[in-house]
């Protein structure tokens, strides 16, 4: 059925956890040969991590024309060159900020179909399932073309191992750079922060959190859990949290295993961004809050009492 290229993402040189579910989705029934593509990362050191999931060759894409990381357009050309060189029919990656950008560039340049934010792939039949209307509906799309490109929503698919022995190699792409687009700087630090869209657990604060300082309450609990902290639109608009923390329709779409909503009413727009969470826990002082009608677990109580109690309980856990 054709070979699949997997666009692997790394963090400080290591394969990000969220790749494994994406690889699992791409593997499907296992009828496709999967090549892993790395841009910025060493094939030899990443091989071990991804061969467990069925990638049989890891290709490190480099360029003799210098740095790819700061040249989005050159990166695109290098990836396309690799796809052609290895006779790739399907390109699958993460629907992360970086993945979406690069895959859209490749799709536009090749005039190939692209579906991002997929939660299910059936490459053999060229059918994908993705969210529409911010998750209010799911759409099943048929993709037609010689090359198909799909972005998988992080955490949407449970990783399953399918071990094999992988080769590692370097592909030096011949690309030109006209310098019309350059990344000059990365601002702000991701150090110690768990990225919302890739987190297994998310704790979100709504407007009742009352101030930016009070988010420390959620941060403390989140640190114990390795969780990311999110905010509702109301909390962001009130200035309690930056927009990068917003979950919902005009913010991030997330798909964690556990979502703890603290002081959120449960608006349609918020649910649009997190309804694919596996388990939703709602904490609210208002027993009529709509969120209790669409969560798995509800806690009628004050977040300022429940969250610290949870933090304590988790500390007891770790000290045991």
């Amino acid at each position: 059925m054709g070979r699949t290229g997997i666009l692997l993402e790394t963090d400080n040189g290591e394969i990000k956890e969220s790749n494994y579910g994406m690889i699992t989705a791409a593997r499907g029934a296992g009828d496709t040969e999967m090549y892993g593509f790395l841009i910025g990362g060493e094939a030899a050191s990443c091989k071990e991590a991804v061969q467990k999931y069925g990638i049989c060759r890891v290709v490190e894409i480099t360029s003799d024309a210098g740095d790819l990381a700061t040249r989005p357009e050159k990166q695109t050309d290098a990836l396309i060159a690799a796809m052609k060189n290895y006779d790739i029919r399907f390109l699958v990656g993460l629907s992360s900020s970086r993945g979406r950008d690069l895959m859209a560039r490749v799709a536009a340049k090749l005039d190939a179909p692209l579906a991002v934010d997929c939660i299910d792939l059936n490459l053999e039949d060229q059918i994908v399932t993705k969210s529409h209307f911010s998750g209010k509906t799911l759409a099943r799309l048929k993709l037609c073309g010689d090359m198909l490109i799909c972005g998988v929503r992080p955490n949407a698919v449970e990783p399953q191992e399918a071990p094999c022995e992988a080769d590692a190699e370097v592909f030096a792409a011949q690309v030109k750079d006209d310098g019309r687009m350059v990344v000059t700087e990365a601002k702000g630090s991701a150090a110690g922060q768990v990225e919302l869209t890739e987190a297994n657990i998310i704790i979100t604060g709504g407007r009742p959190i009352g101030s930016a300082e009070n988010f420390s309450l959620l941060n403390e609990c989140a640190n114990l859990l390795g969780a990311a902290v999110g905010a509702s639109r109301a909390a962001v608009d009130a200035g309690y949290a930056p927009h990068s923390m917003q979950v919902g329709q005009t913010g991030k779409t997330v798909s964690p295993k556990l979502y703890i909503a603290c002081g959120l009413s449960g608006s349609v727009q918020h649910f649009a961004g997190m309804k694919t969470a596996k388990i939703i826990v709602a904490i609210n002082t208002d027993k009529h809050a709509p969120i209790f009608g669409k969560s798995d677990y509800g806690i009628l109580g004050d977040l300022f009492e429940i969250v610290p109690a949870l933090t304590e309980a988790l500390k007891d856990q770790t000290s045991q």
Partner: protein
Amino acid sequence: MQIYVCVKHVPDTAANIKVTGDAAFDESVKFVMNPYDEYGVEEAIRIVNKNGGEVVVVTVGKETAVNTIRSALAMGAARGILVKTETQFLDSSLTGLALQRAIREDGAPDLIFTGKQSVDSEGSQTHYRLAQAFDMPVATEVVALELKDDRAVVEREIGGGVKEVIEMQTPCVIGATKGLNEPRYPKLPDILKAKKKEIKLIDMADLGIDLSAGHTEILELESVPERGEAKMLSGSPREIAAQLVTVMKEETVI
């Protein structure tokens, strides 16, 4: 400066979407300008107010999309172009091409804005295809923009609180998102004035685009069922916390 802003007429984000057939939904809900596009319109108006020029809004959509063009005109855009189609969901490649041809026929863009994605089909790619058709650079999820001579310096959010700074040649395509600015609410006189502004209608068929050249077909739309009533955890905060920890263990998140 000649600035084009591509907008889309979409169901209001608060609307409940009722699926009515394989790939159709009840379109009697309230429609609005795609929220991300508003940031593009606002930014374009601010640039023109400062540097002079003209803001033209362009959309590909059904005849009713004219309402979204009027909203942009009320915000301060000079005129609008509607490329008429029969469907709410058009393949992104075709939309990108239609936007490019409509803009090219109208004038020479110094800058093009779009939203980072539409909130209905969420394809997140039309601006890339538009940029490709023009052979212009493109950046998306843009939260800050500065124009310097023949270059645009943009900041884009790349997750984890990190922003990437990109310098690119103009003309270019910018995918706007929340954070770029605070879109204005039009005042009544502006809304009245907008009614007199020019909207050019173009038939999709007249753009010479092969409509069968699309890459994607919606086979089926399916409503996502809401969860039912929550199972309530009760007791003292301490007892509740203990129950939550048990849930976490059961779900193997800790």
